[in-house]
C-alpha cells in the first residue's frame, strides 16, 4: 500500500489527474454542446413539424405590411391638433378576392376608425366611395373622380394620402379586407348576433363570392328577415353589402357595416378573445392585410376592452348634412360620361372634424 503511495507514483497520479480534468472539462463541454444541439434539433423538428414556421409566415403575411409614406404625406400639415392623440385606422373593404395588391385595390368601403383610451372616445366615420374629389395623377375628368378611384390608381398609399389631405388627420394604420376575408373573419369570431335595422330585400345581389369567374356578373334575389338573428359570415356579408333594396343605398349599407363592426368590437371586449388573437389571425392569413403588428393588435384589443363602455360615435358623411347627391358629366377617354356622384359639403365636414379632433 505504501508503495502504491510512493511520491513518484503520486506524481504520475497527479499528472494523470490533470489531463483527466482537462478531458472531463472537454467532455463536459462536448456534452453541453451535444445537449444544445439536441435541443436545437428537437426544437427545430418540433418547429417545422408543427407548422409553426408557416403559421408565423402567415401571421407576418397579414400583419406588418408597411406601406411607405409618400413625399406628399411627409409634408402634410394635420389641421387638427388632437388628431395625433387618437389612433386612426383606415379600414378598407373590397368586393374582390383577387390577390392583395397594395398598389391598386378596389374599395367599396372606406372608413376611419379612431380611438383614444384616455379621452374614452371611439369614432367610426364612413366616407362615401362616390365622394367627388380631385385626385393627383388622374388625367381624366379634369382630374376629378370618385374617392374609390384613388385606391384603384394609387392603392392604399394614395388613399391614405388623400384621407389625410382632405380630412386633416394622420392615419396611423390601415386594415384591408376582401369578400371571403369578411366571411372568414365573422366565422372565426363564431358568427354575429344581429338586430337588423330593417328587412333586406335585394333583387340584384352580386353572386360573386369565392372568386368564381363565371359568377362575376351573376346576381341573386336576397331576403333577410328584420327579426334579431344569428348570422354566419356569408349572411353577415349579405347584410352589410346589400344596397338595392335600401332607400339610403350606399349610406344604408355603411350604417349596417358600422353596426356589424361594433358587434365585432364587442366580441373583442372579451379578454378570452385577446388570448385567441394569434390563432384567429392564422385563419385570416390570405384575406386580410394590415400594417399593424401582432403585438400592436393585441394591445389595441386590450384598449378595446378598456373602452368597452365608451360610447361609439358613428358618423356617415351622408346627405343632406355632409354631402349631396348630384350628377356630373365629364370627359373620360374622349367621351362625355354622366355619373351619379356624392358632392362633399366641406364646410360641414371641416366643422365636424374640428369638433371631433380639434382642441
Amino acid at each position, binding site marked *: 500500500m505504501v508503495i502504491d503511495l510512493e511520491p513518484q507514483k503520486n506524481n504520475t497520479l497527479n499528472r494523470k*489527474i490533470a489531463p483527466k480534468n482537462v478531458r472531463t472539462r472537454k467532455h463536459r463541454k462536448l456534452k453541453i454542446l451535444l445537449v444544445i444541439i439536441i435541443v436545437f434539433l428537437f426544437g427545430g423538428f418540433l418547429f417545422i413539424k408543427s407548422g409553426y414556421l408557416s403559421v408565423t409566415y402567415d401571421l407576418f403575411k397579414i400583419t406588418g405590411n408597411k406601406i411607405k409614406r409618400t413625399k406628399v404625406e411627409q409634408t402634410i400639415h394635420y389641421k387638427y391638433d388632437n388628431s395625433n392623440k387618437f389612433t386612426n385606422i383606415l379600414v378598407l373593404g373590397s368586393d374582390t378576392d383577387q390577390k392583395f395588391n397594395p398598389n391598386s385595390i378596389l374599395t367599396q368601403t372606406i372608413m376611419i376608425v379612431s380611438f383614444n383610451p384616455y379621452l374614452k372616445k371611439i369614432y367610426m366615420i364612413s366616407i362615401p366611395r362616390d365622394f367627388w374629389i380631385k385626385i393627383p395623377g388622374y388625367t381624366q375628368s379634369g382630374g376629378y373622380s370618385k374617392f374609390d378611384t384613388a385606391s384603384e390608381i394609387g392603392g392604399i398609399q394614395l388613399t391614405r394620402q388623400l384621407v389625410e389631405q382632405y380630412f386633416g388627420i394622420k392615419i396611423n394604420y390601415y386594415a384591408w379586407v376582401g369578400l371571403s376575408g369578411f366571411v372568414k373573419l365573422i366565422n372565426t369570431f363564431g358568427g354575429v348576433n344581429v*338586430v337588423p335595422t330593417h328587412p333586406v*330585400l335585394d333583387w340584384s345581389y352580386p353572386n360573386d363570392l369565392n372568386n368564381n369567374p363565371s359568377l362575376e356578373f351573376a346576381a341573386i*334575389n336576397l*331576403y333577410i328577415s*328584420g327579426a334579431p338573428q344569428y348570422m354566419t359570415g356569408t349572411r353577415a356579408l349579405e347584410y352589410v353589402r346589400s344596397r338595392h333594396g335600401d332607400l339610403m343605398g350606399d349610406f344604408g349599407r355603411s350604417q349596417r357595416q358600422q353596426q356589424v363592426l361594433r358587434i365585432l368590437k364587442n366580441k373583442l371586449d372579451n379578454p378570452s378573445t385577446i388570448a385567441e388573437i394569434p390563432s384567429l389571425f*392564422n385563419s385570416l392569413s390570405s384575406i386580410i392585410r394590415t400594417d399593424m403588428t401582432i403585438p400592436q393588435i393585441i394591445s389595441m384589443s386590450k384598449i378595446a376592452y378598456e373602452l368597452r363602455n365608451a360610447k361609439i360615435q358613428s358618423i356617415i358623411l351622408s346627405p343632406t348634412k355632409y354631402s349631396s347627391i348630384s350628377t356630373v358629366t365629364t370627359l373620360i377617354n374622349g367621351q362625355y360620361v354622366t355619373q351619379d356622384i356624392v358632392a362633399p359639403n366641406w364646410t360641414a365636414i371641416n366643422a365636424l372634424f374640428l369638433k371631433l379632433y380639434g382642441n
Partner: protein
Amino acid sequence: MDFSKENKISNTRNSNTINIKESKKRKFKFRYILLILVVIIAYYIIKYNVIISDILNPKQLSSTISKNVTLTNQYSLNGELYFVKNNNLWRIAGVTSRQITHTNNVSDIAVSKNGKKVSYISFHTNYSNLHQMNINGENNIRITNWANPNINNNAWSATPAYSPNGQYISYLSNINKLITGVPIAGLGVWMIPSNASFSSYISQIYNETNLIVPTSYTGGDADLTWPNNNYLLYTYYIYYTNTPQPNSQIMLYDFSTQQSYPVTPVSSNTMEPRLSPNGKYLAYTRRVGNNNNYLYIMDFNLNSILNNTENSSFNTYKTTSQLVNSGVNSQPTWSPKGNHLAFISLNNNSFDIALKSIKYKNNKLVFGHLLYLTISSNVDSTSKMYWL
C-alpha cells in the same frame, strides 16, 4: 518515519479525494443542469404545442349549433309550445322536447288556432314558398310556387298567419313585382284560402288578395299576426326624418275599412306585436341602440286606435311596461291563459326560450323572474313561437 513524505502522500491523497469530490460535484451539477434543461424543454414543448395546436386549429369563439334542444327543467310547461330550430319544427310539452319534422326546410311557422295545421315557409336561393302540413308533420302541401329560372320572376313568401277560423292564411310576399314588373316593392301582406294548392304561379297571383302595399325600399312589412276576425297586426318599416333613418312602427289593418292604423309612433322602432288572449295587452319588442331588442307590454284599446286618436297622442303606448330591458329578445308569445309570456332571448351566445310570469295586481302589471326553458339550444329567433 519520513513525516514529510507521509505528509506529501497524505496531501496527495487529500487532493485526490478533493478532485474526485469536485468531479462528483461537477457531475452532479451537470446532471442537475441537464435535468433543469429537460424540464425547461418539456415546459416549452407543452406550452408551444398548445399554442401551435391553437394556431393550427383556430377555435371558433362560439360553440357549434347543437342538434338538440336542452331543457333546463326550471319550469314544467303547461300546454304545448311550438318553435323552429335548424329548419325543423319542434315542440316542448311539460319537461320534454320533441323534434317533429326532419325535412330541414321549415321556417316562419304559423299554427292554426285549433292546433291541427301548421303553415310554414321553405326558403331557397332566390325564392321561398308557402307550405301547409298537419301538426304532426304529415300531409305536407306546397301552396305557392315562386320558383322561376329567371331571377326577375322569382318571389319571396314569409311569415304566414292563420285567420282565427283557419280558413285563410295571410302572409308576406313581394309577388307584386310579378304583376307590376317593378322590383323595388318590399314584402306586402297577401291573403289566400288555406285549402288552396299550387297550380301555376301566374294564375295563383290573381287568386290572391293584396291587403297591404308596403313602402318601397324598406324591405317591406313584417311580423304578421291575425288575432281576431276584424284585424291584422304587423310591423311597418319606414325611413324617418330628413336624413332618413330606418325605423319601424306597429300597425293595425282593419278589414272593415281596409285601412291601416298606427298602434305605436312612427319613430318608435317597435316590432313583433302579439296580442294577449284576452285582447287587453299587446306585447312587442323595440330596437334600442346599436344592437339591442327589449321586450314591452302596453294596454291595447281598439277603439282608441280605430278612431285614430292614437295617431297624435298614443295614450296606450304611454302605458308601456318594460318586461326585459337588456340584451336581444324576440318573438314574444302569450301562454293560452295569458299569465306567462315566452320569448326568445340571447343568452351566452345562444338564442334560447325564456319565460316570465305576468299578473295584474292593483291596476299594475307584475312580472315574475326570468326563467329559461332551454339552454344552449340555438333556436330560430326569426320564426314565431306558438303556445297552445
